[in-house]
């Protein structure tokens, strides 16, 4: 037993070293390796998972373009590509410093600008890369909610602000040693891989954008919401399967250590929730319309993935199924609700990432089963309501959730509103009708094919 604890300490130390290397700076990597010869497998694990997360960009690009009309495909793809490009540079330049730099009063980070000086270091760069791909995921979610009508120029500015300010600040609160991670309830606010930090944040900034923009031309006829079918089910499905694949980097990789064998449980939980989300969305829509609506099932899979993201390391398999199943239903009804409320979210980003992201945060407070700590196999372990953990953790989650919603929606709203006042963020009606591709980009997505009226 004592040996076991020694082991736990050793492993945690390894992980810790990996994040906060104590060397001044080590761009060669030799000193870091010497300090902890077990690091290579952690580096391999973290990097490959980061690659998978990066690949989710392709998933988003395909899913969102599949769910848009052919005349706006170039535009939505351009947005998905460029937010990653621009976000990479911005987050490198100052987003990372704001998020993960030395803490200032629990509010923001303050060191690491441009990764200069002591940040030119193998473990700092590793961490930077890891955080970057998550930031980019969050940023790209918004493109779906504002699709088919937001000016490309406005999207560039949005990207600057979200990857440079909005995301890093909340990220600091939750993951960068900021105040949320330290609230004295349960183990503090917990969001394992970012149901909230990444997905709900993106979702609610997107909600703000959709609200400021208003619905697409033709979305409502005499107040009744209309369906506007996307141009390619095959691309959308490809996108979902790529996202599912990439999520295996997102969630299991968030142990930030291969020495936590928990990664196997995280992986399986991720898969189960995705599957359950797809099934529940499919069944619900079948009972409602008598058709096997695969477009809903596609969204359901993502809903399940988003929901399990916060709790995947803390719950059992059966709970993962339940979490995913509920997420699929939540998403379904949220989509219809937003539609009825006059909010036009072309790809369902708000419901999938926003609503299910919040649900994910709560699941930690409910289902956490006391077998994993705060990115550590050492106690204290997170325990939720169902496992006798009391209301502490649940309340911590609730606080984080409320703060998240206010921050994301508020900051997003201000951002889009200010831009709209300054130069107008919506394309002209004529442009919207003819499609953004030719006006903004000069190139239709499928010049060789006839598209319908």
């Amino acid at each position, binding site marked *: 037993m004592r040996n076991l604890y020694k082991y736990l300490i050793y492993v945690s130390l390894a992980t810790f070293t990996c994040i906060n290397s104590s060397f001044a700076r080590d761009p060669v990597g030799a000193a870091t390796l010497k300090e902890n010869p077990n690091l290579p497998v952690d580096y391999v694990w973290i990097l490959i998972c980061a690659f998978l997360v990066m690949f989710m960009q392709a998933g988003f690009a395909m899913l969102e373009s599949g*769910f848009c009309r052919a005349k706006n495909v170039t535009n939505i793809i351009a947005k998905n590509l460029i937010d990653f490009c621009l976000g990479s540079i911005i987050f490198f330049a100052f987003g990372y410093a704001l998020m993960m730099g030395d803490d200032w009063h629990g509010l923001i980070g303050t060191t690491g600008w441009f990764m200069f000086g002591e940040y030119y270091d193998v473990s700092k760069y590793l961490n930077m890369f890891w955080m970057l791909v998550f930031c980019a995921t969050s940023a790209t979610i918004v493109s779906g909610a504002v699709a088919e009508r937001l000016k490309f120029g406005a999207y560039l500015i949005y990207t600057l602000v979200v990857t440079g300010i909005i995301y890093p600040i909340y990220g600091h609160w939750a993951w960068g040693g900021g105040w949320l991670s330290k609230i004295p309830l349960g183990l503090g606010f917990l969001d394992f891989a970012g149901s909230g930090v990444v997905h709900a944040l993106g979702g609610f900034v997107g909600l703000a954008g959709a609200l400021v923009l208003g619905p697409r031309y033709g979305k409502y006829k005499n107040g009744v*919401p*209309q*369906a*506007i*079918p*996307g141009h390619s089910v095959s691309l959308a499905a490809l996108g979902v399967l790529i996202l599912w694949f990439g999520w295996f980097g997102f969630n299991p990789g968030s142990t930030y250590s291969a020495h936590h064998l928990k990664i196997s449980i995280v992986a399986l939980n991720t898969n189960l929730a995705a599957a359950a989300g797809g099934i529940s969305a499919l069944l619900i*829509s079948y009972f*409602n*319309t008598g*058709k096997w*609506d695969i*477009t*809903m099932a596609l*969204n359901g899979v993502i809903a399940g993935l988003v929901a399990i993201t916060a709790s995947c390391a803390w719950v059992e398999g059966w709970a993962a199924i339940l979490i995913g199943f509920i997420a699929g239903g939540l998403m*379904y009804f949220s*989509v*219809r609700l937003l*539609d009825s409320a006059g909010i036009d979210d072309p790809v*369902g980003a708000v419901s999938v990432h926003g609503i299910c992201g919040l649900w994910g945060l709560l699941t930690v407070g409910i289902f956490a089963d006391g077998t994993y700590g705060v990115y550590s196999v050492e106690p204290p372990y997170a325990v939720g309501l169902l496992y006798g953990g009391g209301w502490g953790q649940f309340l911590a989650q609730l606080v984080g959730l409320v703060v998240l919603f206010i921050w994301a929606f508020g900051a997003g709203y201000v951002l889009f509103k200010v831009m709209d006042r300054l130069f107008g963020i919506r394309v002209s009606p004529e442009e919207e009708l003819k499609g953004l591709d030719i006006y903004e980009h000069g190139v239709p997505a499928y010049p060789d094919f006839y598209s*319908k*009226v």
Partner: protein
Amino acid sequence: MKKVEAIIRPEKFEEVKEALKSIKGCSGMSVTRVEGHGRQKGLVEQFRGREFKVEFLPKVKIELVCSDEDLKDVVDSILKSAYTGEIGDGKIFISEILDVVRIRTGERGKEAL
């Protein structure tokens, strides 16, 4: 010479094609995909949980120019082969063609058919 424009169900196209083949005088035709709107009610489709009505249904337009003598045969065989009896079977329009030219040979009139 007459031009026969027949708007038919896509799923009947194969049959109509075979029927027309068997008419001697009828050597050629052109086919276009159109979207049609008539008495037939549109389909209900759905996307991401919301149903919507597609008012225009896919139809096939066959254009075929034939001599006045062949007209009856052509119309009859289309009528027979495109028939299902359900709303949406389509229509045949007949109009006058003043002249025809075969590009390859420069022949004109009935010769060119």
